[in-house]
């Protein structure tokens, strides 16, 4: 295996994060999650497993929830990312209020990933059965709550979206 010359292989990337362009010189191996946390300074995106299983790092890429631990920053060059910090800028987002009301949060480690996974469903005003809500949450692990509060919170937020 030959050694790769790091200096020559850094690249300049420009990623729009929460409607703000963030530009930086990065090594190709930098994960999008670390770009968000360390270059953009947004620490709401958490890293749990770094192999796609826990969902804590979930952000939206061009509107779709994806794992930011399984994407390189260079792959997100020129694209648009939304993190949990984009929610509730003018007061709490309904999803955040519902999580507080239903005790959907304990330590909060999993919460940002869950909010970013579910937010598009609330946005679209979807009507989901409890089973469909559980399915929508299946890509996010929580080690504290036992999930019932989270499911109730999503149900509540979806019901508000309809009124």
């Amino acid at each position, binding site marked *: *295996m*030959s050694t*790769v010359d*790091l200096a020559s*292989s850094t*690249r300049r990337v420009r990623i729009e994060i929460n409607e703000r362009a963030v530009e930086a010189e990065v*090594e*190709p*191996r930098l*994960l999008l999650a*670390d770009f968000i946390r360390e270059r953009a300074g947004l620490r709401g995106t958490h890293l749990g497993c*770094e*192999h*796609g299983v826990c*969902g804590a790092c*979930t952000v939206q*890429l061009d509107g*779709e*929830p*994806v*794992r930011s*631990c*399984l*994407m*390189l920053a*260079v*792959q997100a060059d020129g694209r648009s990312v939304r993190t949990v910090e984009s929610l509730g800028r003018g007061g709490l987002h309904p999803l955040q209020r519902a999580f507080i009301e239903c005790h959907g949060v304990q330590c909060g480690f999993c919460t940002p990933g869950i909010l970013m*996974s579910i937010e598009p469903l609330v946005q679209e005003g979807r009507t989901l059965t409890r089973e469909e809500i559980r*399915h*929508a949450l*299946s*890509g996010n692990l929580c080690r504290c709550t036992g999930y019932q509060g989270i499911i109730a919170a999503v149900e509540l937020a979806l019901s508000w979206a309809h009124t």
Partner: protein
Amino acid sequence: MKPAPFAYDAPRETAQVVELLAKYGDDAKVLAGGQSLIPLLNFRLARPDRLIDVTRVPALSNIEPRDGSLVIAAATRQATLERSALTAQGWPLLIEALRYVAHSQIRALGTVGGSVAHADPAAELPAAFMTLDARFHLRCARGARTVPAAEFFVSYFTTALEPDELLEEIEVPPLPGGTGYAFVEFARRHGDFALGGAAALITLDARGMCRHISLTLLGAETPWRSPQTEQVLVGNPPDEQNLVEAAHAAVQGFEPSGDIHGSTEYRIGLAETMALRALRRALDRAHTGGRPT
């Protein structure tokens, strides 16, 4: 952990991908959705010198009909295939299989060709493509070739792809009208890799006898397409007794490897149950003209 350093290219043309693969061969790896490769990089189980990102090549992300077949360019995202109306209409088995692939957040980046090239023994798409008699179009600087699914999957995580070869397209032939289909599997939690699963197609003739049968089990060294099942059913009535016999025949010679999640014996038993459920559901749909039920 974090990946070891590597160089990165993001070409815009298939020809450039092929040139880079010819130049770097074994030292380079194709990066598609990264949903299998990046975990390996993060844990340093893979340390390629160079990644060739194929997701910025427009020609490699495309779904189109061609002479009645469905042609899926390799870097098409799994989420895109899942939403494809053309696929839902003519090849709904693929849509049913995709629902079992990981979670929506993974399918949003994971590609169809990446799943095929990765060849995880528990993966759904390889089994579905085997059932559908798909053909894989490969390209390298030395030329292009086409490999049928039955010859493409060689072993665990091993395919017919050479280090300098790109999987370019997957071609799925049309199914006879009224073909019933089913994909079923069992996993401990939704989105986990399956402990067992089966994909089935059943076409009946005018008298209600089995005209064409295709059944594949997942979980062994390669997707296991059972010729015995076809022998038991073709030309015969698809009654419950024959389906039971066909499912039993399916696991003859099927050798899944056991691990902490399930022994070989357990997995064989599970596969037989999955085969029977897949055959029953495919038959129901064959009776209703191949429509989803």
